[in-house]
């Protein structure tokens, strides 16, 4: 990756990291309700993939999806306002943390039933092929989703129809509270299953934004050329627990320490230095990210609550909720 491109990726990752930290702090202040599944530590996957995709490609994500919404054009203000139940939220406060969506830029949703969005990505790729648009669909999912039936149905159908879809597994080593290795019959949950469906499966360092960008770009070109779907496992680690309620005490201290030293932002910073980008340039990017998220928090705090009448809108395409005469 060129220095300028990498610096852009770095700044996007910094924005995501600070947005996740803000979400965490706002939760502790009682301003975010329900739960959150923070993606701090997994930023390079969303940012690296987005750098490789076309603006009109489709992305489907999971309940741990803040990084994908942000990487695909949602602003920190829209995201934090959604988490804080504000009228200005990305989904007008109807979705919450687990359902961030920015359809206008092809980020077609965050889904909280594990694995449910994989068939949707297959369908979006099918639609792109029917319409002849050369668009690609990407489903990001966790390692836990590889033991769901929809995962296998999706891989088979995508392979049989040779669809332009990528299945990107964010393997953070734990399905919720349980090590994925304890409940999965193969060592690489997604990549080892891919060949059973006639699909290539690769593994990449998910904390290396350049490596993710390269792998997604290569597999995307292949899929757009009509050579069919692929599975990419991006190995990574979450900095927080599974959800807000989880302190992740089950993770060995040595493991946590090792992964924290393999931080995606640190890796990118080191690489920028290798490319001759000065420390002051990187510090300026950090400062822009800090200021952006700080303004976002202030704006979200100041934003109004939703109009209660909004509860009875948006069921149907006409905007309403009428079910009877």
């Amino acid at each position, binding site marked *: 990756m060129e220095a300028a491109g990498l610096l852009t990726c770095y700044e996007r990752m910094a924005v995501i990291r600070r947005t996740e930290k803000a979400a965490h702090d706002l939760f502790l202040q009682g301003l975010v309700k329900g739960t959150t599944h923070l993606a701090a530590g997994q930023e390079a996957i969303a940012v690296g993939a987005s750098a490789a995709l076309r603006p009109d490609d489709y992305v489907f994500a999971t309940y741990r999806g803040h990084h994908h919404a942000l990487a695909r054009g949602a602003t920190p203000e829209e995201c934090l306002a959604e988490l804080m139940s504000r009228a200005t939220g990305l989904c007008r406060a109807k979705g919450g943390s687990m359902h961030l969506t920015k359809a206008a830029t092809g980020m077609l949703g965050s889904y909280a039933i594990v694995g449910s969005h994989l068939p*949707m990505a297959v369908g979006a790729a099918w639609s792109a092929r029917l319409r002849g648009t050369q668009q690609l669909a990407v489903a990001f999912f966790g390692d836990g989703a590889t033991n769901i039936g929809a995962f296998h149905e999706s891989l088979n159908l995508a392979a049989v129809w040779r669809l332009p879809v990528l299945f990107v597994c964010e393997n953070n080593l734990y399905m919720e509270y349980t090590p994925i290795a304890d409940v999965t019959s193969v060592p690489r949950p997604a990549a080892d299953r891919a060949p059973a469906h006639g699909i290539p499966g690769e593994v990449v360092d998910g904390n290396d934004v350049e490596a993710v960008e390269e792998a997604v770009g290569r597999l995307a070109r292949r899929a757009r050329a009509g050579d069919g779907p692929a599975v990419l496992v991006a190995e990574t680690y979450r900095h927080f627990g599974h959800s807000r309620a989880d302190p992740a005490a089950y993770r060995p201290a040595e493991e946590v320490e090792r992964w924290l030293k393999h931080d995606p932002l640190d890796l990118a910073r080191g690489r920028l230095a290798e490319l001759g980008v000065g420390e002051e340039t990187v510090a300026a990017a950090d400062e822009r990210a800090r200021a952006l998220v700080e303004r976002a928090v202030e704006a979200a705090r100041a934003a109004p609550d939703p109009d209660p009448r909004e509860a009875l809108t948006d069921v149907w395409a006409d905007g309403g909720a009428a079910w009877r005469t």
Partner: protein
Amino acid sequence: MADLITYREAVAEGIAREMRRDASVVCLGEDIGAAGGVFKTTTGLLKEFGPERVWDTPISEQAIVGAAMGAAMTGTRPVAEIMFSDFLACCWDYLANEIPKVRYMTGGQVTVPLVVRTANGGGLGFGAQHSQATENWALTVPGLKIAAPATPSDVIGMMAAAIRSDDPVVFFEHKALLAAKGAPPPPGHVVELGRAAVVREGEDVTLVALASMVPLALKAADALSGEGIEAEVVDLRCLVPLDAATVLASLRRTSRLVTVEENPYQGGWGATVVSIVADEGFGLLDAPVRRVAGECVPLPFADALEEQVIPTVDKVVTAVRGLAAY
């Protein structure tokens, strides 16, 4: 076109009419292409529209309906077939959690214009896992439109409305009606979803029915007419939108209500109709309401047993007689 068309042929004709007028309409499902569907309800579609618009799938209900959802969100109008309505349970996540919620939980950002067609109901001796009337399952989920036509003409008209709808529609095709014949409707025939039809007028009692229960209610009404009881028969056509106004208007004339439902009494759609009537039309009633519904057991195999479980003409006649004497 033939003088008469079967319900089965009307399904394919209804889909074909929409595929001719809108290139974004595509079909997917198990055995729908070369085989023409296990019920022959998609015969001729592959030949006319080709494999780029009619797609045979593996036996993967989640992938079928999930892919239809993804395609509907991105500029196509998929018509997905789930072979038997019992199999909706295999992809229920999509009908309960994904399709009906995605527009709402994204604050209106996405639209899901799709149709899930499925063969519903008993009467053909397929046993407990291929015979249920499951229209009430869908009725438990806000965000799904529910169509269940009773005649070939309505199949075509409601299919047109369902495919053109920007909302998701679950379209129940009744297995016991597939061989039923009727006049084919003229080109451009559209039956707006949520418009019930008064298919027989009468002043003594209102029978509210759906799908195969409509001809059954009509037979019961004919039998009752010989006894001097004139029943009005309302074909609901849809459960969502539910045309409660037509039911209440009928009760203003008859003051007596019987629902005729194939789905089980427990949680059946008639309970919703009756609750609306109790809430908004209590003063119209001169007698208690009666629900003739499926018994609360799985569907048995033998005809003699199945008759015990699902509504019959005799059960409806008996219920109406009791009400008329009230």
